[in-house]
C-alpha cells in the first residue's frame, strides 16, 4: 500500500522530469544523443589521424563503448546530487530517501533505451546481424543497471554530508572513462594489467556488449558473475545505508 504510493511517485516524477527536459530545453534530448557521438568522432579522429591504426569497424567499436558509458556516467552524475537538491522539499514531507536517486536513474535509463535502439539499428546496418548471443543482452543490460544503482545510491546518500564529493566524483568519472576500454580493446593492455583492468565492472560490461553486438559471441560468464556480485553487494549495502540515514539526513542538509 505504502510502497505502491512511493512507486506511483517514482513513475510520476520520472515522467515529469522527462517532460520538463523535453519542453524547457529544446536541445535536451539532442545533447544526450550528441555526447556519445561526439566522443566517438573524437576518438575515431585520434585513432585514425594521430595514431594511424584504424579500420572501418572502429566506429561500431567506439559507439558501443561510448553509448553504454554514457548511460553509466550520466546516471551517476544526475542521481548523486538528487537527495541534496531535494533538501528544501524534504523538510516538509516525508519520502523514503531512496526514491530520489531512483527517479533520476529511471529517467536516464529511459533516454538510454532510445540510444540503444539507435545503436542496434546502426550495427544491423553495418552488417552485424543479431545472433543467438543476443539472448545474453537483457542480462548484460540488467547487470549494468545493477552497477549504476550500486554506485549511485551510496553516492547520493553521501552527498548531503560531503558536498565536496561532487567535484571528486566528476574527476574520478573522467579518469575512469579513460580506462574502461571505450577506445581500446583489452588485447592492447599488457597482460599483467588485465587483473586491474577487469576490476572495473564497466570494462567487463563494455567488452560483453561488444562480444554480443559486434562479434556474435557469448560474453565471458565468469567476469559477468563478478559484476553481478559487485552490483548485488553494493545494492544491499546501499539499502542498509538508506535504512540508517532515512530520518537523520534531513538534519544534515544545510540549504
Amino acid at each position, binding site marked *: 500500500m505504502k510502497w505502491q504510493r512511493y512507486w506511483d511517485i517514482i513513475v510520476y516524477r520520472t515522467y515529469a522530469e522527462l517532460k520538463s527536459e523535453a519542453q524547457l530545453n529544446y536541445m535536451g534530448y539532442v545533447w544526450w544523443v550528441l555526447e556519445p557521438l561526439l566522443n566517438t568522432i573524437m576518438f575515431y579522429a585520434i585513432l585514425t589521424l594521430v595514431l594511424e591504426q584504424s579500420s572501418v569497424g572502429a566506429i561500431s567499436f567506439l559507439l558501443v563503448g561510448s553509448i553504454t558509458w554514457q548511460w553509466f556516467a550520466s546516471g551517476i552524475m544526475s542521481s548523486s546530487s538528487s537527495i541534496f537538491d531535494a533538501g528544501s522539499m524534504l*523538510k516538509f514531507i516525508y519520502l523514503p530517501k531512496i526514491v530520489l536517486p531512483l527517479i533520476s536513474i529511471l529517467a536516464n535509463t529511459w533516454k538510454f533505451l532510445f540510444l540503444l535502439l539507435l545503436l542496434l539499428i546502426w550495427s544491423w546496418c553495418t552488417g552485424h546481424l543479431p545472433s543467438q548471443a543476443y539472448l545474453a543482452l537483457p542480462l548484460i543490460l540488467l547487470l549494468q543497471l545493477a552497477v549504476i544503482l550500486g554506485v549511485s545510491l551510496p553516492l547520493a546518500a553521501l552527498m548531503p554530508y560531503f558536498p565536496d564529493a561532487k567535484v571528486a566524483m566528476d574527476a574520478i568519472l573522467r579518469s575512469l572513462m579513460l580506462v574502461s576500454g571505450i577506445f581500446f580493446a583489452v588485447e592492447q593492455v599488457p597482460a599483467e594489467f588485465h587483473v586491474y583492468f577487469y576490476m572495473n565492472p564497466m570494462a567487463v560490461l563494455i567488452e560483453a556488449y561488444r562480444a554480443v553486438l559486434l562479434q556474435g559471441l557469448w560474453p565471458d560468464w565468469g567476469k559477468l558473475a563478478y559484476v553481478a556480485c559487485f552490483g548485488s553487494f553494493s545494492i544491499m549495502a546501499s539499502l542498509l545505508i538508506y535504512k540508517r540515514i532515512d530520518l537523520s539526513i534531513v538534519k544534515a542538509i544545510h540549504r
Partner: protein
Amino acid sequence: MLISLNQTGVCYRRPHGFFKGSRSDFWALKNITFDLHSGETLGVLGRNGAGKSTLLRLLAGIISPDRGALKIQPGLCTTLLSIGVGSHSTLSGRENAILNGMMLGATKQHMTASLERIKEFSELGDFFEQPIYTYSSGMHARLGFATALEVDPDVLLIDEMLSVGDKSFNLKSAVAIDKRLKSGKTAILVSHDGEKIKELCSRSVWIEQGEIVAVGPSETVVRDYENTMFQARLSV
C-alpha cells in the same frame, strides 16, 4: 493516545569543515513531553526560533529524535500541511495536484477522484490544464492549498495561519481549515494568534528555546504567553 513524546530532544549538528575537527551541536528541542489525543486540536505557541517547526517535523515523521522517546501509533498518517512542495513547473495544474497529493500522503486513486473538487476550490478555471509556470504566485498558492485540503491524514499539522492568495481566497481557506478542525479532526496548530488558538484548540503547549514552558487549557496558556510577551515588550 495517538502520539506521545517523553523527554524528547532533537539536535542539529553543524560541521565546521572537514579539517577543523570539532563541530557544534545545537539542541533545537530539549526535553519535550506531551501527548496528543485522538480528536483534539492542540495549539503550539512560542517565539520565532523556539523550536516549533522542528517539533512539527518530528511529529510528521520527517526527522527522528536524538534522545528521549517518540511514540507514534503504528500506521498513523501525519502530514504537515504544506503548499506546492515538490511541484514540477512543466506539469499542468491537474498533474501537479495528483503529484503533490501523493507527496503529502494520499494515494493516486484518491487524488484522481478529488480532481474536480480541487479545480473548483482553487478557482483556476481553464488554467487548471495549463503548465504551472504560467501561474501567478497567488494561483500557485491556491492550487497548493486546494490540493493539501483534499489530502486527509489522520493527524493534520499546520504551521502558522497560511496566507493564501488574495483577501477573499484567504478567508475561504481559513474557513475551510476551521471547519476541518471543528469537525473532530486530530490536529496540531502552530500560531502566533492567541485568539485563534483559544477558539480552535482546547489544549495548548508553549515552548521557548526548545523547552516546554507550559502545557494546559488554552485559556490559561495563551493568557500567560501573551502576558509574558507584553512584559518583554515593556521592558525593552
